[in-house]
């Protein structure tokens, strides 16, 4: 009997359950179909926002290591010492090959183009923005990989079993740069010339990208011949030398259009009377900042915020029990010129070799380029109203040093207990203290709570700014033989830094240009590409160690060896009755965790293309030296 009942129930469900088409054919609630997505400006914008979010930065405030590599800083972090203990990079480092991103952009462009529900005005802007992002990513790829396949339509597989029609060969390196430059030219008129549009593409952003791309291409054309090993016969890597002038001219023109205000009222940020403060503010003042052209923006109390200040705030009095990771190196700090525009090591010893005693701890950094203290927290300077406490020990009259191995330790000195080491260190090998003697100031957020994990920071990351445009213009002008124009642009940047003696056209050399970029654009993710495009990375990082006498030489030379980070530590003099009592001396040190020196190999100039990419597409040729 039971059997019949069950059979009956099953039969009823089978026959009766499925006749409701409305019940089964429902709109999905998690997926927005294409015809809806591209017919509402809000939905289209939200798709575009995802594409913006996937923008590839080499350096970003979301990852403190990415900004501070190549011995511009020591990393005071237990997990990161390895970077100073091996001496080469893998060939695959810095690789990028995200054609999924390119495809999503291409689908977006196709969707918006075919859309019937969007206003013509919105469509133009959306498409221009997507093309800007696509050109930006091709620019990123060409910088790291050389020429790549140029895919401008979403490709579909026809399931025929033969995918060869989807396999595209690499374009030449020049062709990708040409694409970026031409694309910027076409879209800039479609984008708003609005100075306040910073996190969405504007005309200024397109021009700035065009300027940078043309400058990079120009320098690869000009300097590529110095190492012919880094090129491919098909031009996938390397640009013919005769194209250099054309690219430099394009770079100068693009820069001048921004400088002349064609894209809006961009200018150098000059709001604060204290020049060091002024320089630091460029990177956190988001209220009508005329310097920023295109940024990655963040917002508190949303998912889009970052922990740069948490990772790098001065350890003493920090809002969390961490900080102090990026320690700018002596190599970098000493390269800031004096206010008279001269290169000089930090004067820690007099002519006879004796240490110079300074009354105040920060005095050794006086009379330097204001960008030094705008970029670096030096001993004696303050953050969030609290002076950093950086000193390495007590220098005794007999030449010995009393120091401690925990932050702010006190010890018995001549019968009284005194603090023998700063609360910010430096203590060799102790993470989060200033092991080079310095902390970073760029991108540090002065707002309360920025160093707390629950709050974090909304300081933006500037991708293109007016200062860089001026230096791009100066470099392009110099390479075109217009030293007077170059000197003028350089001086505008240097004047803001408080340097009193302007450069004359005769002063402009390649080393001058390279140095200005090194100090002005430090920690902005550009240094690496400068070293690569000038083809000097293998000279700057040649795998040889830096000696203590070598570190203070050739300051201002573009090819000065930068294989290891050095530091300089202040000591308090203890010598009652002597004139130097309670004064400070400075000693040059190499942090003991630095045991190897970096070596940049020819095969590092262009990243190795992954083996699975080569396997899937036999038309792709390998990069040189891999």
């Amino acid at each position, binding site marked *: 009997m039971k059997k019949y009942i069950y059979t009956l129930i099953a039969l009823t469900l089978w026959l009766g359950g499925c006749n409701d088409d409305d019940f089964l054919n429902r709109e999905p609630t998690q997926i927005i179909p294409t015809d809806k997505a591209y017919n509402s400006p809000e939905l289209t914008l939200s798709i575009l926002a995802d594409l913006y979010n996937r923008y590839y930065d080499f350096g970003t405030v979301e990852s403190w290591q990415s900004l501070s590599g190549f011995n511009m800083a020591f990393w005071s972090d237990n997990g990161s010492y390895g970077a100073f203990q091996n001496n080469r990079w893998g060939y695959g480092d810095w690789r990028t090959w995200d054609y999924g991103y390119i495809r999503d952009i291409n689908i977006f462009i196709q969707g918006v183009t075919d859309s019937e529900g969007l206003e013509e005005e919105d469509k133009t802007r959306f498409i221009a923005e997507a093309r800007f992002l696509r050109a930006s990513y091709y620019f990123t790829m060409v910088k790291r990989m050389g020429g790549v396949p140029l895919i401008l339509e979403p490709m579909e597989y026809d399931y025929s079993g033969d995918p060869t029609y989807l396999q595209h060969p690499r374009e030449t390196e020049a062709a990708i740069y040409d694409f970026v430059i031409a694309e910027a030219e076409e879209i800039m008129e479609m984008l708003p010339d609005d100075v306040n549009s910073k996190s969405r593409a504007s005309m200024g952003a397109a021009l700035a990208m065009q300027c940078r791309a043309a400058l990079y291409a120009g320098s690869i054309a000009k300097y590529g011949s110095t190492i012919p090993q880094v090129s491919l016969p098909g031009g996938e890597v390397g640009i013919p030398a005769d194209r250099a002038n054309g690219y430099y001219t394009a770079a100068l023109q693009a820069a001048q259009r921004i400088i002349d205000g064609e894209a809006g009222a961009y200018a150098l940020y000059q709001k604060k009377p204290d020049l060091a403060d002024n320089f630091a503010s460029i990177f956190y003042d988001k209220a009508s900042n005329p310097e920023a052209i295109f940024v990655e923006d963040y917002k508190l109390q949303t998912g889009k915020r970052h922990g740069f200040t948490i990772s790098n705030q001065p350890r003493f009095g920090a809002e969390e029990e961490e900080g102090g990771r990026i320690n700018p190196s002596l190599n970098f700090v000493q390269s800031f010129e004096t206010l008279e525009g001269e290169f000089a090591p930090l004067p820690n010893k007099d002519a006879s070799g004796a240490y110079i005693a300074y009354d105040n701890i920060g005095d050794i950094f006086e009379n330097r380029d204001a960008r030094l203290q705008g970029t670096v927290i030096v001993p004696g300077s303050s953050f969030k109203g609290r002076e950093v406490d950086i000193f390495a020990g007590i220098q005794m009259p007999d030449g010995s040093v009393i120091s401690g191995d925990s932050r702010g330790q006190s010890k018995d000195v001549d019968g009284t207990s005194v603090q023998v080491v700063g609360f910010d260190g430096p203590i060799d090998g102790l993470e989060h203290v200033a092991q080079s003697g310095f902390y970073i100031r760029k991108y540090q957020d002065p707002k309360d709570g920025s160093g707390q994990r629950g709050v974090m920071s909304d300081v933006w990351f500037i991708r293109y700014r007016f200062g860089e445009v001026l230096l791009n213009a100066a470099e392009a002008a110099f390479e075109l033989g217009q030293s007077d124009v170059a000197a003028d642009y350089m001086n505008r940047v240097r004047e803001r830094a408080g340097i009193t003696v302007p450069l004359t056209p005769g002063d402009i050399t390649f080393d001058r240009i390279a140095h200005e970029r090194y100090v002005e654009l430090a920690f902005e993710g550009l240094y690496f590409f400068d070293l690569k495009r000038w083809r000097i990375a293998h000279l700057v990082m040649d*795998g*040889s160690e830096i000696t203590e006498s070598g570190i203070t030489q050739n300051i201002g030379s573009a090819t000065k060896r930068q294989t290891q980070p050095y530091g300089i530590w202040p000591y308090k003099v203890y010598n009652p009755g002597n004139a130097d009592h309670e004064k400070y001396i400075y000693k040059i040190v190499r942090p003991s965790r630095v045991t190897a020196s970096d070596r940049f190999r020819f095969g590092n100039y262009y990243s190795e293309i992954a*083996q699975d990419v080569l396997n899937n597409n036999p038309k792709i040729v390998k990069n040189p*030296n891999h």
Partner: protein
Amino acid sequence: MKTLKFKYYWICLCVCGIFTSCGVDNFDEPDTFFSGRVVYEGEPVQVRHGEVRFQLWQPGYGDPGPIEVPLNQDGSFSIKTFHGDYKLVFVNNAGPFQTEIINEEQRDTIFFTLNGEKTLDVDVKPYFMVENTEFSLSGNTVNARCSIRQIITGEEAREVERVTLYLNNTAFVSDNDLENYANANADTADLNAIEVSAEIPDDNTRNYVFARIGVKISGVESLIFSPVEKLEF
């Protein structure tokens, strides 16, 4: 007693499973030694440890990928791998030498079959060779002499950028600064009679030192070296 039997039964089954299952779903480990040296006229080419490499490719197994084989500092190499047909190829600009072009079609790729232990000397043509090296100790100083013979001449010829004597307290001696604790550059005016000396650092605690001369060739990343020599006090 009944429960005990039951347990034994299961334990036996598990043990059997443990001992047999690995053989069922795992490959056999590689079992063939392939070793040899990179040589010029029978002399091994001395390079930096682990710096110069070649690739082995084995066609016919789905997605290809190279087996990277690095050279030891005396130019020797050895790997353990599977039986099969292999292609041996140096990546471009891999070392301080040029590879031998075997024929137009094959270029410099070497084909060989592995079905048992095999040694192979791979012939290359270095830009220079360091010859007639002599090391001597006098006090705390290592004196070295050598002559440098240019092998590749004509259009492909390159120049000597510098000649350096490297000292270390382990048998690994090279331009990698983890592998030398002292070095000195030589005067390169006469390549047939190079003389150079370097001081042993004061903090050397051992009663021996390893020495080696390296030649940096312009436009080539890897140095070519003399053999390592151990000098005892």
